[in-house]
């Protein structure tokens, strides 16, 4: 297997992009990434999207996107793993480059969420449609049930939980692509409208339009395109039960655990070696559960540790320097790629005011549904 590097990144601003359609935002991100890498011709490409059909009325988007980024004729594959579709696109492109099949491969993700009306129903298709969504439970509802068990078992208070989105927004202030780069107070979180008890609106990641793309090539060719490539040191992926009620312990995300162990083993590192992480904080409670299962905090201690400042600059480890899904935005199919972009920019020391000093090894974790899938990447400065 060949070593694989990231040689270019590009994304749209995340937000309500009313004047751009799904192909416009994907093209903007892809062309930015190709410009960043200095390439005009791709050998192959992957497009991650959770539900372009339901959100934007367009399937068959792998071909649409190839055509609209000037790559008509190039093999293009759409991949889907709910909110982990972006991570899956990067994994798929990695395998194609590592195998020797192709050299210059684009991995992108896109979601055009603001074109659709009943977003809750569309998102719920990533849960168990017959045995969860049929009974009216929403994604906020599923994570609310995780939060309730965690708070009951470990004594995390509602006020402590509110500090997680506050931290996310503080990080996003320095991210020019963030949807909500605004300060947030604990009081605002606690007074925001109830979505699914005990989770309130400000515990939830937003509805977002956006696209993100990276260009991969063999590490030994990376020097042709960039002075500071970033190596994809390891990838770990795993599946879990799609229905939350089939998880043995509602606070343990087994798929995240398995995907992380596979990535740690492939990289030959452990959580203590990682300088920063981008995790899938689709809800405030998700950041806690993921941080624990990745090994950064003991089970049951992550909530209070993050509330006390252990996951920000100057703490134990910076979690979500980008602002995360909560404040940067969560265009579901694009999120996993956007995490890779944040990690790449941190490792290239071009993250501006968000820059983490001496960042050499970063980890990204992208999750589908309520833990039905998870993809972890470990990236290294070269």
């Amino acid at each position: 297997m060949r070593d694989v590097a990231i040689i270019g990144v590009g994304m749209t601003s995340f937000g309500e992009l009313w004047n751009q359609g799904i192909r416009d935002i994907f093209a903007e991100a892809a062309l930015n990434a190709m410009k960043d890498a200095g390439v005009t011709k791709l050998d192959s490409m992957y497009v991650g999207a959770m539900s372009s059909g339901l959100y934007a009325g367009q399937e068959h988007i792998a071909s649409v996107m190839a055509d609209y980024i000037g790559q008509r004729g190039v093999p293009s594959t759409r991949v889907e793993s709910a909110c982990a579709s972006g991570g899956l696109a990067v994994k798929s492109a990695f395998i194609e480059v590592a195998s020797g099949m192709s050299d210059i491969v684009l991995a992108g993700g896109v979601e055009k969420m603001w074109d659709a009306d009943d977003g809750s129903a569309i998102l719920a298709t990533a849960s168990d449609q017959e045995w969860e969504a049929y009974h009216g439970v929403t994604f906020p509802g599923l994570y609310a049930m995780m939060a309730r068990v965690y708070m009951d078992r470990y004594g995390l208070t509602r006020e402590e939980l509110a500090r997680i989105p506050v931290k996310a927004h503080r990080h996003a202030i320095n991210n020019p692509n963030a949807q909500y780069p605004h300060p947030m107070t604990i009081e605002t979180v606690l007074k925001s409208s109830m979505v699914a008890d005990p989770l309130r609106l400000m515990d939830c990641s937003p509805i977002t339009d956006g696209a993100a793309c990276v260009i991969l090539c063999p590490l030994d060719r990376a020097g042709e395109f960039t002075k500071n490539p970033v190596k994809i040191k390891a990838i770990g992926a795993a599946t879990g039960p799609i229905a939350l009620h089939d998880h043995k312990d509602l606070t343990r995300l087994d798929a995240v655990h398995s995907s992380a162990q596979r990535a740690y083993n492939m990289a030959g590192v452990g959580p203590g070696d990682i300088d920063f992480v981008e995790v899938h904080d689709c809800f405030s409670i998700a950041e806690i559960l993921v941080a624990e299962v990745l090994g950064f905090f003991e089970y049951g201690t992550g909530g209070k540790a993050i509330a006390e400042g252990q996951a920000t600059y100057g703490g134990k480890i910076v979690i979500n320097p980008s602002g995360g899904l909560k404040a940067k935005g969560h265009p579901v199919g694009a999120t996993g790629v956007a995490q890779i972009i944040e990690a790449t920019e941190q490792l290239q020391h071009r993250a501006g005011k968000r820059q983490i000093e001496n960042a050499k090894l970063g980890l990204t974790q992208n999750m589908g549904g309520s833990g039905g899938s998870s993809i972890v990447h470990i990236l290294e400065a070269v």
Partner: protein
Amino acid sequence: MANSQRYTREIPRRYRLEGQRFVSGNVYLPMRYIDPETGERKFDPIRLSGKGTILSFTEIHIPADTYAREAPFAVAIIETDEGARLTAQVVDCNFEDIKIGSKVELIFRKIMEEGNSGILNYGYKAILV
């Protein structure tokens, strides 16, 4: 909107709680051909008693459009006395009375209507006992 067969095929599970008990003792409500825990393929049909315990719960305030008229409504993850896990609405009670560990019983109820002219769909909901 879906064709009626999408719903009628689940009638044994949704109306009559007809599940499966694998040789391992694991019990499931949705039809499974293989026990995900053990890989076992042999099972006996089992009709669940409908009695169970709440493992966690929430109150949905912002549902999908189909369920908007019911909101807010309570939803719980329930483990039945036989060991099957399922998700169901909890009805006919004050939300404040629902606790982790509350005992419930599943009853037959209308679940939802598919729009103004779609079919009516039925299944189980839980009540506190």
